[in-house]
């Protein structure tokens, strides 16, 4: 998996997955065990639209704090993708890494 260099902290996939799992596990109604395969939004997902907003915003904020990156995850691209990046923890982590790779440092 790609790594994205940062003066202070490289963004590694397993860290992003851990971060999402931590955020998701604190949402009311989350499964007891949250891992890469956990379904978030859409078919079999447990997040309603408001909970998804909170997950996305928490992720954006933690990325801003941890990696000094100001990314927007809920852009037109993510909303219009046929396979939503918000389906599972894994798909969200991959999407975050892809968006982060395109962003200048905050």
């Amino acid at each position, binding site marked *: 998996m790609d790594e994205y260099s940062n003066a202070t902290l490289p963004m590694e996939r397993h860290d992003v997955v851990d971060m999402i799992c931590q955020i998701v596990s604190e949402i009311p109604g989350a499964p007891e065990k949250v891992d890469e395969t956990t379904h978030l939004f859409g078919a079999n997902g447990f997040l309603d639209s*408001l909970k998804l907003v909170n997950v996305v*915003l928490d992720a954006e*904020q933690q990325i*801003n704090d941890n990696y000094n990156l*100001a990314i927007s995850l809920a852009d037109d691209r993510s909303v219009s993708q046929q396979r939503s990046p918000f389906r599972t923890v894994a798909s969200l982590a991959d999407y975050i890494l892809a968006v982060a790779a395109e962003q200048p440092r*905050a």
Partner: protein
Amino acid sequence: MSERPVALVTGSRTGIGRYVAERLVAAGYRVVGCSRQPADWALEGYSHFAADVADESQVKALLTSIRRKYKRLDVTFNNAGVGSMNHSLLMPAATLERIMSINVRGTFLVSRESAKLMRQRKWGRIVNLSTVAVPLSLEGEAAYVAAKSAVEGLTRVMSRELAELGITVNAIGPGPIETALIRNVPKGAMQSLLSRLPIHSMGTPEDVFHVLEFLIDRKSDCITGQVIYLGGA
């Protein structure tokens, strides 16, 4: 004693924005203000940022700074705005774009980023600035009325979207107030506007603050999506 609340006032270098910022400081708020130019005044409890509300990266940086410094935001007053008195047939497209950008894009960006911070405490107040020119469909103010109509639309829709996050969104629509915004409006045009209102006198920044104070009060939890006009429009 509970921590002092934090307020953001845009366009706070002069006029209504400055007055509101000073009154909020006096009321115990820690106030952050912004304008495109640096402020030429200072006050304990007030900090100023040079930021353009229509610039997404500058707005994000402003709100990130508030989050890191105060870890909360209670009130946002979207006061920054520009107008231009001109017949629509004589209105350059660039003027329309400038008016829409600062009034609409600016209000949207600051509201969006403010709400992201406010949601963490499940409480917040966003107050936008509209104008009586909207209900009066004021001639010569096509771009300004179009922009403020959009601000009112944002107010109503965002009030619904943000209600679940404990955030209210309202707007205040004052009549003419003696500020830089209307300094170049001809006296006759101003009299004509005032004559169309039930109350024929100019407003004051204090009138605006009075309504703002009401809307941001903790007891105003159930007031959202409203536009309160001054002068009786």
